[in-house]
């Protein structure tokens, strides 16, 4: 099946935060009371029940001020660090390419929270018991499997968010970047094997607070791909060695005691 994606065009976004509301409403996530921090950006961070939020940035530009917006939510990587480290398979790659998760399988270990290069997954409460399941954007699988757009896309008034086949959106995004010219960038085409949220930016990724070269942390790969097979090998050798010792020693010691 062709991969699906969400295209976010930052140049069309007006930061109404309708996507934040639609996400909470569709996914029945609790809203929380926050305090005014002197910015329209609210709530202050992603959380267990806030899967998407708009970030507001004020950037100086030759004496002028640019007010720019970034969509902050799961990027649905093709090579996702969270899927690599998840011990229970709660996080997995959906047939349509995005990173789905089965909350019933989550153990609450929180490895994904630490491994994500975009700092997206959030643990619930329960730090002492360790029972604190993770939450993040699900890509609305219940909607898209019924031929509906994700809730955030559906609600977006200026059409800054689009949902569709990843290939088609890529072509569209590239055309848009060419049209914008200058420093305009397409983000998400190749990062981490290709993201399933694509960004049309009017400047470099850094200006929008996006990592220029996100990576799966080396330690996460080392512990899954090196330590695991090594562990089987070492424990297997130990067990075999002991078995071999038992066979030899028993024979020798038997012969010895019979000789006496």
């Amino acid at each position, binding site marked *: 099946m062709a991969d699906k994606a969400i295209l976010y065009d930052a140049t069309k976004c007006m930061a109404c935060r309708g996507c934040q509301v639609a996400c909470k409403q569709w996914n029945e996530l609790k809203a929380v009371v926050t305090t005014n921090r002197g910015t329209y950006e609210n709530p202050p961070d992603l959380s267990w029940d806030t899967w998407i939020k708009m970030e507001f940035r004020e950037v100086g530009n030759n004496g002028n001020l640019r007010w720019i917006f970034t969509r902050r939510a799961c990027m649905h990587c093709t090579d996702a660090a969270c899927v690599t480290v998840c011990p229970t398979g709660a996080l997995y790659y959906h047939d349509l390419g995005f990173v789905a998760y089965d909350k019933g399988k989550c153990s609450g270990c929180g490895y994904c929270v630490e491994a994500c290069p975009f700092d997206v997954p959030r*643990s619930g409460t329960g730090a002492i018991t360790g029972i604190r399941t993770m939450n993040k954007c699900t890509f609305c699988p219940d909607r898209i499997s019924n031929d509906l757009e994700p809730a955030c896309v559906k609600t977006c008034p200026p059409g800054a968010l689009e949902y569709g086949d990843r290939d088609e959106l890529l072509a569209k995004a590239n055309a848009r970047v060419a049209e914008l010219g200058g420093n305009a960038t397409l983000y998400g085409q190749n990062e981490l094997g290709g993201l399933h949220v694509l960004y049309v930016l009017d400047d470099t990724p850094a200006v929008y607070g996006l990592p220029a070269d996100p990576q799966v942390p080396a330690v996460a790969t080392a512990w899954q791909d090196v330590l695991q097979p090594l562990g089987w090998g070492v424990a297997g050798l130990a067990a075999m060695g002991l078995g071999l010792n038992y066979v030899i020693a028993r024979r020798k010691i038997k012969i010895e005691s019979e000789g006496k």
Partner: protein
Amino acid sequence: MTTAKGKAKSTPISYALFGAPPAPGEEQIERYSRPVRILHWVNAVAWIVLFITGFFFFVPQFGAPAAGGVSGLLHRIAAVLMVGWAVLYFFGSPKAALRGIGEAFKWGADDLKWLQAAPAYYMLGEEEKMPPQDHMNTGQKLWWLFVIGAGSLMIITGALMWFFKGIISADAFMWSAFFHDVGFIALLSFALLHVYLSAFHPKMRGVFWSMWRGTVSARYAESHHKKWYDKIKKG
């Protein structure tokens, strides 16, 4: 725990599994006090729980039972039991605890001789070159050193992941998980060796009972721990 009734009941299976304990008529010497034995078995049970619940986290193919977080909770309970009991034991009898820990660090010429002679002894049963040993033999000292080292590694990395998540950097957290897994592999391998050498090696049949009943036969003490035996005989 050594009532006549209990013995009669447990005779066939446990003797077949662990070897026969010293005959009732034989002279016995106390090797492990009751608090030490309880400490050992609390540790053993906690370790098995930690191992199984940790295994679910370490190997994704066996990760299904970890879902919902119950195994993670059990892992924490067992960790608290293991560390807590050791701390209680330490403050209950600090002198004995320090003496016990100190045994691991007392090394001499006989330990080097033991290391040279051990392969032939454990593979072929050749006893001639084995030097006299104290209450702990060199192998036990090595195991003890390993337990102290690997145990500390597990406690430190475990505590970092449990109590300092979100406080330490993501890299520090993941390296903690990495070294927790390294410790897991090492502890598993050496625990197999420990169980084998203290219960199942052909030369060690029956040794298991010293940690269960607390005593060994004088005959065993003299042949395996000559220095210790002589000290006791002197009084």
